[in-house]
């Protein structure tokens, strides 16, 4: 009888919950994982052979060998670079500029806030694996890769390093880095741009569940000449939760409580709203020409990596 239906606080089958093992990351990066990374690296070189070089041209004008532009000579410039041919034709002192070749800086920002602890397996573990894979590929391509987990602030920093042998430091760092806090992308971006002056690719791996919105953070990166690479990660049951009955919903980060009576129509509306939110993020990235990938934890991370390789943007 409905009146006497038993109520308890046990999670409903199929419902989301915080995985109590989220803090245990000892088994995340084992030998098998390393072999997978090596395989991914080989595949990436095969697929993108000829296009992939460790070097990367930057817009920085410097001491490279490839001509980039001219500019008017000013006192103090090295007159070895004065284009004398043009001076003969135009009677103007113009200086030849060359593109400077430098290593690419890749910054991997991994969301370790409380919301990433939810899911089975926790989204955070998935994000760390993806971050580690991208780091490995970057290191193998002789890029300088730095890793920074974040919550409501940057929770740590693995300084930029290069070379595949650095991957074990990466693993250790990801196993031991602190976790928790609320997502605050705007504040994170400010901290990031303050601490990192070398421009580069900024891979943001997060669920982008920021009450203040994701736009401010990404824009801050853009405005400071970084190239954000957006990777949204979510759990399928976040998008389509299997809930019913009278519930008191508690935000795992803010603690906000909301009493709801979950009905089928409400679940459908929520699913639509979740999809709309993801679309907003995607449209924002598209509009700003930011590479964007959306994935959920049911997709094997190596499949995601290959998808990223195929679409380009991460490796050039």
């Amino acid at each position: 009888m409905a009146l006497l239906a038993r109520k308890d606080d046990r999670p409903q089958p199929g419902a989301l919950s915080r995985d109590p093992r989220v803090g245990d990351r000892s088994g995340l990066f084992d030998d098998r994982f390393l072999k997978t990374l090596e395989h991914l690296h080989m595949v990436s070189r095969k697929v993108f052979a000829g296009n992939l070089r460790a070097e990367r041209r930057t817009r920085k004008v410097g001491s490279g060998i490839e001509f980039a532009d001219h500019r008017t000579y000013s006192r103090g410039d090295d007159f070895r670079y004065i284009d004398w041919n043009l001076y003969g034709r135009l009677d103007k002192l113009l200086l030849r500029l060359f593109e400077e070749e430098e290593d690419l800086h890749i910054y991997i920002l991994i969301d370790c806030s409380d919301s990433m602890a939810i899911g089975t397996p926790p989204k955070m573990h998935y994000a760390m694996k993806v971050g580690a894979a991208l780091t490995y590929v970057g290191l193998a391509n002789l890029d300088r890769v730095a890793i920074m987990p974040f919550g409501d602030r940057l929770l740590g920093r693995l300084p930029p390093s290069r070379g595949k042998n650095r991957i074990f430091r990466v693993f250790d760092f990801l196993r031991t880095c602190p976790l928790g806090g609320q997502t605050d992308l705007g504040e994170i971006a400010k901290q990031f741009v303050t601490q990192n002056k070398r421009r580069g690719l900024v891979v943001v791996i997060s669920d982008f569940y920021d009450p203040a919105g994701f736009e401010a953070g990404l824009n801050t990166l853009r405005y400071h000449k970084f190239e954000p690479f957006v990777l949204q990660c979510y759990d399928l049951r976040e998008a389509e939760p299997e809930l019913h009955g009278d519930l008191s919903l508690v935000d795992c980060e803010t603690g906000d409580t909301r009493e709801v009576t979950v009905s089928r129509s409400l679940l459908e509306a929520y699913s639509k709203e979740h999809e709309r939110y993801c679309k907003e993020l995607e449209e924002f990235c598209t509009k700003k020409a930011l590479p964007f990938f959306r994935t959920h934890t049911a997709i094997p991370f190596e499949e995601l990596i290959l998808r990223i390789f195929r679409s380009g943007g991460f490796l050039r």
Partner: protein
Amino acid sequence: MTFLGPIPAATLAWVAGIAAALTISAYILKMRRRRFEVPFSALWKRVLDQKEPSSLWRHLKRLLSLFFLLCIAGLVLFAALDPTRGAANHDARNVVVLLDASASMKAIDGNDDKNDDKAANPGKTRTRLAVAKERAKLLIDSMGGGDLAMIMRMDGQTTPLGRFSSDGPMLRRLVDAVEATDTPADLHRALGAAADALRDRKNPLIVVISDGAFPVEQREQVRWQPAAPGEKDLAAIDLTGIDVRYVNVGHRKDNVGIVAFNVRRYVANKAAYEVFIELENFGDTATQRRVSLFDGDLELFAETDPGKSTLDLAPHTRVRKIYKDLPAGTTGHLRALATVPAGLAPDPFPLDDEAWALLPARKSQKVLMVTADNLYLEAAVLAYDNIVPSKITPAEYAANPAQASDYDTIIFDTWAPAEPPPKNAIYFRPDAAHSPVAISGELPRPHITDVDKSHPTMKWVTLSDVNIDTTHVFAPDASKGESVLASSVRDPIIVAKRDSGHKYLVFGFSLTGSDTDQVGSDLMLRVAFPLLLVNALDWFAGDDSDLITTYATGVRQRVPLDGAVGLREANLTAPDGVSQQKAPVLEGLATFYADRVGVWKLSAKFPDGSELPPLELAANLANPSESTIAPIADLTLGGRKLTEPEAFAITENQRLWIYLLLGVIALLGIEWVTYHRRITV
């Protein structure tokens, strides 16, 4: 709309309050929400904000659920009030139907009744009770919507068969279940019970459905007005304000019945007996009856001896007959039967044509006298029939005590063995060391001042002039089954004892004295002495000539149980051999109430597991008032003539509780569906 439920309004208010509180508590529990963690509540907020306009409806849906629950509780309580559709009938009555189920209602004259449907009931086999049941059911069928009735069975006891109800089919079933017993009706008790049941009820009415065979004294113990101050007629039933009506059934009165039947042995010749039979003709015409006497299945009178067995009975006369010198039979169950000679009308009331009596089994006793030489004792024993005497000296007995088991009774004369014999025994001045009853001292020249005349051994015995030299004084212990039969002032000198199935009679004095102890008495010279011995031997044999061998049905009687020390309860088996009932035992007396004519069996187990020897009890109607089956058309109670009841006012009557319960089930179904379809959550 009327409410027939038995629940008072105040009680119902309490129940309603508690039910509402429980319902709301259950609703609150149901509404208690589980906490659930989500990664991003802002999304839920957006969704819920969009749905906010419908929140009022959502609240209403929840309230709808509470409303369902409260409706369910309310409907159940409303059903408990037993509402009835139809106009309230303020003339509705509370009726107690006293249905006579006494023995006279077994009279077979149903179809001759003037109101009986002869076409529907051919033949003349219906009893008065069957007709009374029809009348009761007609009465029930005529009940109005507000009328309430209670059925009471009236026989030797009064038994309410249910509570006040207007449920016609249920009342009819109760009436159908009534069976007549073999007891006379106790109108006084029944009227008292009915008056008590009707106390403080509106429009009380008692309907007596009977043939009116009640004793006059019962009919007069009624009061129609409140007792005046100082009036002390406590026995009268107060019927103030109660309308008492009477429905008469039956019409025949030509009954002849056995009103007394007894048997007794001859004191001098225990092997023979005589029976006493008394028949009464309650009719207005002379008639004849043939009396048969059976010992078990053996008929004692020859059919060819009409002069002995056929009796002429004048109208309203009693004929007493004593049949002498009847031989002892085998079963001891004597049955007298009065049958109608050929050519005469059948007897309408067969129940009192049969009567039972019991004749205890009788056998000769082997008596062993352990005495040096006592002619007085031997002569007294020889004077009794059915005795096979033997005599040995104390030395011979002491040499072989086991020989006692070959006898029924041992008499020790001024001597006592070291161990009491495993048989019944009489001791005259036993040795102090071997006395079966403790001795507290010696008393010279005693005078017997007190005798327990109620004891079987002391019947017809006078001991006041007995001269005694010296006697032991006993210290009897009632817990051991010892009782004082005779004492000198306060000193017991003759004691009886019952011990594990054996009986002892112990005299503190000697008859003639012994060689070493020349103290005696002149008891053996008294007339009382042989009588005392005969009584003692009869007591040993369980043959008490004063034993009531027949009991009247419908009367609570106390039956003495021989040797029932420490017994609290006995089992009674009805004459049919199947029905069992318990009989409480107090101080050796079992309470016996017979509601069936015939031979009852009484048995009991002692706490130590041993069994009391089975006792048989004969129960007869033996009630001339009940055998007077002539119906009384005009019954008068306390000087007031009772009239027949009119049919009750018929009103439209529809019980609603079943519909209310159906509504509850429907609401439960709706609530269940809406809850599980998440509509009212």
